[in-house]
């Protein structure tokens, strides 16, 4: 059953000043298949996808669709050739409603050249129903979660009737349940003859969904094979050019005193009666489905959102947290799940971003101590292994993984005791993930307490000492290391609230 080639990339090279991003790259995507692309950040995946989508122009080489050479100068041309791309870093307009966003740039026209809103409503409802999603078309995007918005992006690509859909880390922001929905959708698309280029760092997903796998490293195609001829270890070894001995660098660290205790924390409608503690050297996980209230609890704890009642005890002292200044002062910091929104100041430099949370350290005695700032920022950037041309580079231009490391470096400058990490490895490649895990272990060894929220259960199981599972705004259960299993976590995560109340 040899399927014909839908999209072929032939001998493409692309250089940027000082870097050869792609070097004579060739591969082919068959009609109605899922073609996974693996590679670390900076391997050239994104550059190639941007060339296919018309954002960049290749220096040499050809793109062929149905074995005919095509010129793609911009994304609109790409779309008219049947190519759509779903970006990892979602760019959306928060004030638009669902129906408006689905048809941006593609509005159905009425008789007088006006926008046919009735048609938009009708098509939106059809689309939502067909894909089994129950959103109101008039909800604004700002009121949706990231996972909802990502789902809509996928819907949008489908609505263009594309034959080739490029998905860049489509599952980085969605829950396990939604991944299943997505995979069903991908299978449906395959049956309709659509080809999917699937970029992901999640090996288990790739091995579930892909028909073929191509591995990139340093701008070249290392290998391209049928999935059945590959195994996970081979792919990872090809990606990193070496074998990773252990995917979770967890070490046993001596556990000390309680540094954080939360009692009966409540914010009506968000979460209720939250009780938990954290000890020195501990990594405590928070599991739960999206909407279970994990992030909301942490946001309130960190002072981003208000809470109604309950008590927060840091280092045995009852502490009132009204804003982020209070928590940072008490040695508690938080890495937010939405780094573009709550993490970085995109237009400012790496240096200014890193020093932002502890400016007192560099600005005292009436002036800025430039050399101290440069020295400290460089030190922490090296420690976090931030890959940037220099510390005067604007943060906006760095990759997602490097932006994440910049934010971590920022928090390290404040020398915190408690770190709340909300999805710290979302959308980050295998190598950088491993670095973040190692860093977490290092921090635990320094007697810091870490809270990790994650939707990836293997990560929680691999890294944590204890896991709290949340469901419907409450803590549904607590697991010790010996009881860790995906099954146990899911059991609590899907527990209905009635059972929970009986248990309490």
């Amino acid at each position: 059953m040899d399927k014909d080639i839908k999209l072929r990339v032939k001998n493409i090279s692309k250089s940027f000043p000082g870097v050869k991003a792609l070097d004579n790259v060739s591969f082919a995507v068959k009609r109605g298949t899922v073609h996974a692309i693996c590679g670390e950040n900076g391997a050239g995946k994104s550059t190639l996808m941007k060339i296919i989508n018309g954002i960049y122009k290749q220096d040499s080489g050809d793109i062929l669709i149905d074995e005919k050479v095509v010129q793609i100068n911009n994304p609109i041309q790409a779309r008219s050739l049947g190519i759509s791309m779903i970006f990892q870093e979602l760019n959306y307009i928060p004030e638009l409603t669902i129906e408006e966003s689905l048809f941006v740039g593609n509005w159905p026209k009425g008789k007088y050249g006006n926008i046919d809103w009735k048609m938009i409503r009708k098509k939106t409802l059809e689309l939502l129903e067909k894909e089994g999603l129950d959103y109101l078309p008039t909800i604004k995007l700002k009121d949706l979660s990231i996972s909802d918005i990502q789902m809509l992006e996928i819907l949008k690509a489908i609505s263009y009737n594309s034959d080739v859909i490029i998905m860049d880390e489509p599952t980085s922001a969605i829950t396990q349940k939604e991944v299943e929905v997505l995979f069903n959708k991908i299978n449906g698309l395959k049956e309709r003859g659509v080809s999917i280029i699937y970029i992901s760092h999640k090996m288990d997903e790739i091995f579930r969904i892909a028909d073929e796998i191509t591995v990139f490293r340093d701008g070249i195609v290392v290998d391209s094979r049928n999935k059945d001829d590959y195994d996970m270890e081979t792919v990872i070894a090809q990606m990193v050019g070496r074998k990773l001995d252990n995917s979770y660098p967890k070490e046993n660290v001596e556990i000390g005193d309680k540094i954080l205790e939360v009692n009966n924390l409540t914010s009506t409608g968000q979460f209720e009666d939250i009780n938990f503690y954290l000890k020195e050297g501990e990594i405590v996980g928070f599991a739960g489905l999206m909407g279970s209230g994990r992030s909301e609890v942490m946001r309130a704890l960190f002072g981003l959102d208000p809470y109604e009642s309950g008590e927060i005890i840091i280092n045995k002292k009852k502490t009132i947290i009204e804003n982020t200044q209070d928590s940072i002062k008490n040695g508690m910091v938080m890495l937010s799940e939405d780094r573009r929104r709550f993490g970085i100041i995109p237009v400012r430099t790496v240096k200014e971003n890193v020093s932002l949370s502890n400016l007192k350290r560099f600005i005292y005695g009436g002036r800025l101590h430039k050399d101290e700032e440069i020295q400290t920022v460089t030190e922490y950037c090296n420690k976090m292994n931030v890959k940037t041309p220099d510390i005067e580079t604007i943060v906006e231009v760095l990759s997602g993984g490097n932006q994440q490391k910049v934010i971590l470096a920022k928090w390290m400058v404040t020398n915190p005791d408690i770190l709340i990490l909300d999805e710290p490895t979302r959308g980050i490649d295998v190598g950088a993930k491993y670095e973040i895990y190692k860093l977490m272990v290092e921090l635990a060894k320094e007697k810091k307490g870490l809270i990790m929220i994650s939707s990836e259960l293997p990560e929680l199981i691999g890294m944590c000492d204890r896991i709290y599972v949340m469901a419907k705004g409450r803590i549904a259960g607590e697991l010790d290391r010996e009881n860790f299993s995906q099954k146990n976590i899911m059991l609590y995560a899907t527990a209905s609230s009635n059972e929970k109340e009986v248990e309490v």
Partner: protein
Amino acid sequence: MSKYSIYFVLLALFIISWLANENFIQPNNLKNVANQISVGTILAFGQTILVISGMIDLSSGSVLALAGVLSVSTYVNTGSLLLSFVVAIIVSVTCNILNGLMITKFRTPPFIATLAMMTMARGAALLYTRGQNIYQIGDYIIFGQGSTFGIPNPIIFLIITLLVTAYLLKHTIFGRSIYAVGGNEEAANASGIDVNKTKMKAYIINGIFVGIAGIIFMSRVNGGMPNGAISYEFKALTATVIGGTSFTGGVGTAMGTLAGAFIVGFLDNIMVMVGVDSYLQQVVRGAIIALAVIYDIWAKTGKADKKLRSAE
């Protein structure tokens, strides 16, 4: 290189003006230009701080007039230069605290809040003077027409406000905070910056600058003019924007704004010297503003693209 694009525009304009009329380069003429742009530029430093932090002040021309007439009136009644100076600052800072409260406590967009203040302050200036100019202001003219060590006082105020602005932006926690607030307010808050306090401080500093500008303005025009300095806020914003301060926030410098102010100042000056029709002058001024900003954006995005590519 492109970081300095606006200074090349200034240099080019300087050379062209020099070639167009040799008198342009005379020290007296240059001093004159600096004198003329002083009021607008001092306002522009306040705008720069506000625009960097993602805000704006549409009320600065009106608040200047209110602070100015109250200051002049204080001098006429008491004969104290010091007291009149203090009154101008207090009045202007008070108006700006109200701006800040509207924005931080009542969540009014800065555009709307300061638009309201623009109307209120102008009304208050007219109400206080019953629409009459205050003349015979005696020694009050020292602020705008006197000199210290041979340097005209407006230029001294201009230099002081420039240095203060540059210092605040580069060497203080407040400076870093306004770049962060303007660059991404939510991330600034999540990084432990007190966003409301930062915004409030920005308006207070703007208030001090507007007060100083009010004193110089009234002193230069020899009277308390309640209808003076109309649309000066836009003059100030022009210099700010030409100087490379981004209206989306997070970007801008004091030196850039000074360069922007001189671009407008030289342009006005040379057009008068070579006898350009006064109506045409206005058209040219607008066109040059557009060109300067287009050039600046072009130079900057070129750089951003290159950096992005090399980082990939």
